Structure formats: C-alpha cells, structure tokens
C-alpha cells in the first residue's frame, strides 16, 4: 500500500495540481476519486478528512509521526516537491522560487476564479441543475464554507450577475495576454526550468484552445500553445490525464500535434 492517498476529482484545476506534481516526482499514490458534481466532497466520510469540504486533500502516512492530512492544492504541491525524492519542481534560486510563488498566487487567486466562474456558469451549473431540487438544496446546506455555499448557489441557480461575468471575461483576456508575454521571455512560466508554476498553469489553461478560441490560438498566442503542447507531451501529464473519468478531461486531446 502506498504511503500517500490523494482525494481528488478530475485532473483539472485544483485537483490536477497535486496529481500532476506527484506523477512528475514519481510518487506512487492511492487515488480516491470524489465526484464533485455528486457533492461527494461534502459527505461525512470526506469531511472527516477535510472538514472544509474542499478538494483536493492528501494524506501522507508516516510510521513515526502518524497520518498527516494536507489541504490547499498549491501548498500540497510545495510539500510534495520538498518531501519526496525525484526531479525538483522548485529551482534552488530563492528569487526563482519567489517568482514561481508569485505566479501561482496570481493564477490561484486572480485568474483561476475568473476561469472558474465562466466554467461553472456554462458547465458545472447546467450539469447539476438537472438533479432533484430538494436534493440540491440539501447538498448546498451541507457545504461547510459559507463562501462555497454562495458559489454553488450561483452556479446551480444560474444567478451570476452580468457585471461579474463581464469582469471575469476581462480578467481572462488580460490573464491570457500576460501568460503569452511571460512565455515569450523564457521557455517555462516563471523560471528557466519546468516548475510548479507550469504544473499549476497547465491545470487552469490546458483547455484554452477550446474554451477561449478567439483569445488563445496558434496565431494570437503561439507561446502559450507551444508551452501547453510541451507539457501535454510529458509522460507524467499523459498518465495524470488518463485518470480522468469524464469527457471534460478529453479536452486535453486538442493539444495533440497533427
């Protein structure tokens, strides 16, 4: 049995970050799939692992220190890189580390929420809306974090405001522009070597050619497309995306070179 269990959804956004980091490091892990659209993450069994009910969470069993439960996808990735042998996903230079952390925060807290708002309004909301309204209401009531309850309500009942959706579109367009600029300076996102910033970035951007075809394509963002294809061709990425169970992750196939 592996010492590591990862509780995750599809290899996408937050779930995909530690999945890909573990694969890159060559760390074997027990996969515990949670169906986000079935609200598995708010069931008592999972809340016993992570009371906040957010995905992913990782349990690292240590014979001397007991089970360590880790949450927050980006912080989990840093832990995975530091705690296990294998290729380093953080360069040694503290300034590179600063830049990598800066870009991960920018993506986690500024860009990804805008992608997410659009994704939830056009994908997650309609997917779960077909469920029994009473079941949905009970599912929302079980969500531990108040801000997540608000987010789910908006997605399920389609109550996103025009102003906030417009702002998300603005941020997505600007974020794509910023990524293109950054990737025109160097091969990888925040340092001269493949790092956690690339793992993070791929997870939010791999479907860009499909989700934002007007803003991100070979003509307008050649550096982004080249970067995504290079990451997709890594064996760890292929193995990670093969763990997906829904059609959602098949979007990654768009990155295959013809």
């Amino acid at each position: 049995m592996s010492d590591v269990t990862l509780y995750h959804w599809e290899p996408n956004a937050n779930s995909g970050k530690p999945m890909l980091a573990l694969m890159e490091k060559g760390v074997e892990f027990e996969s515990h799939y949670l169906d986000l659209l079935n609200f598995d993450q708010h069931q008592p069994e999972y809340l016993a692992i992570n009371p906040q009910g957010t995905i992913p969470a990782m349990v690292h069993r240590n014979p001397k220190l007991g089970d360590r439960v880790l949450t927050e996808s980006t912080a989990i990735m840093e832990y995975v890189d530091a705690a296990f042998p294998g290729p380093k996903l953080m360069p040694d230079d503290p300034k590179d580390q600063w830049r990598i952390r800066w870009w991960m925060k920018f993506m986690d807290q500024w860009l990804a929420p805008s992608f997410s708002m659009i994704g939830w309004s056009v994908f997650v909301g309609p997917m779960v809306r077909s469920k029994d309204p009473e079941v949905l209401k009970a599912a929302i009531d079980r969500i531990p974090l108040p801000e997540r309850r608000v987010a789910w309500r908006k997605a399920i009942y389609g109550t996103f405001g025009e102003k906030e959706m417009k702002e998300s579109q603005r941020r997505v367009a600007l974020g794509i522009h910023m990524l293109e600029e950054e990737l025109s300076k160097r091969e990888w996102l925040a340092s001269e070597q493949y790092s956690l910033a690339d793992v993070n970035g791929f997870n939010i951007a791999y479907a860009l050619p499909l989700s934002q075809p007007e803003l991100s394509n070979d003509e307008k963002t050649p550096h982004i497309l080249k970067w995504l294809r290079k990451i997709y061709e890594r064996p760890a990425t292929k193995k990670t995306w093969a763990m997906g169970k829904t059609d959602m992750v098949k979007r990654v196939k768009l990155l295959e070179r013809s």
Partner: protein
Amino acid sequence: MAMVLYHGEPNGPSLTVLAALFETGHDAELQLIDLTMAERHSDGLPHNVETQMSIEGEGPVLVADGEPMADSVFLACYLNDSAENSPIAPTDAFARWEMMTWCRQIIERAAPAAAYLGVKAHLSDKLSSLSEAVFQKMVEPIKSEDLKARWNDIREGNFDEEKISDSKAKIKAAVEMVEAKLRDGRDWLLGEFSIADLETYAWLAGMGDIEPAAFEGAIRTEGWLNRIKARPSVSRALSLAKTPAPQQVWAPGPEINRWG
C-alpha cells in the same frame, strides 16, 4: 546582493517585510514611500508585471539585483531562503506546508478584510478631500484596473454593508484561529517563530482600534500581540514610522474574494 526596499509606514505588508528583513539580517537600502498616495506607482521606483499586477494591493516593493519583487509573504520567504539557517521559516516540509497554508488563510481572508476596514476608517476621508485633478494624476499610472477601481471606491466612500460585516466576521475568525493555536500555551503560532506570526500580526495589529469586538476575551492573542511587538525586528520596523500611529495607516489591499 544589492537590495532596496521601498516600503510604506510599518503596518500591513510593509511591516511584514521590514520585520522579515531585520529578522534575517540582510542589508538593504530603505526607501519610505507614501502608499496612501499611490507613490508605489510613481517613476521613483522600478516596475514590472509582478509589482503592477500584485494582488496584494499597495504593498512594499523589494528590488534585489535589479529585479522588482512584490507580495509580502513571498518576499519574506525570499529573505528567509537567501539567509543562512532559515531563521523565520521551518525547514521540515510538513511544518513549511503548515506555515504556507496558514499564511494563505491570512492573505486570502484576513488581509482583504483588514484592508477594507482600515481604508474605510483611515483613508477614505483623506482621498475625498483631494481635488479631482490631484486624485486622477495620482491614480493615472496604476496599471491594474481592479486596483484602480478600489482606489476610486475608497475616494467615493463606496463601502458595501455586506462586505463590511463579512470583513468584521473574518477579523473575528482570524483572532479565533490565533487564540485556538495558542491554547496549548505556546508562544508562537506554529511552535517556532515564523513568517506566519509576522504576517498575521501585521494585518491584525491595527484592527484592535477598528474592530475591538473581535478581540474581546482573546487573552492569549493579546499576549501574543505584545510578544511580537516586543521583538527587536518589529520594534525596529515600528521605529521607522513617520506618523504617530502607523497602525492607522492603510492603503488599498487585496480585494475581497469575488468567487468562492
């Protein structure tokens, strides 16, 4: 390594980085800038995408070997990781994860709340009293549209009641987190003194006057605040203040989460 730290009054993110600088023993030229007058965006210091788009809002800028850097927790990590013996961060991977996760909770929840309440109490009137021409000239160089929008809202006194009450709840929650950690009698949040103490202190120190209800009965937190204030690094940072009450100096901070 040649470093210049452009910092505001010792409060919020400027306090974190000043104290981290002194804890780690690096040499840096210190340049005081008025964050409340948007001087961080002036020609007086270098810029890049990371300083212009920093989602921390109006924090300090550290220029190391020519590269401008922003975001207080990561600057503190940088100062720690380029010093010997990791003075303000654990080297154990799990303890480091705890510190980074703690700081993430603070920067994502407590910091936007503190900045929102802080600018409402101490910056809004000052900005409102400026002439339109002076204000526009001041914010014109700000590249981040959402940060500029926050400056405009503060000047116009646009404070949302829901956000005010949410911010008060988040400050209370942060104090409760601190109180819970200290319950076993420890001196510092995560056992050893770390960036988590500095960052949490920097955002909470000014909240005692603005939101005293959050601190009611929090005796351990009060003792911890006093211990941090007494550290040589923090008192040295506070001694750099040009105003009598630096904990009342607030500039626009991180935005309140707009999505989940």
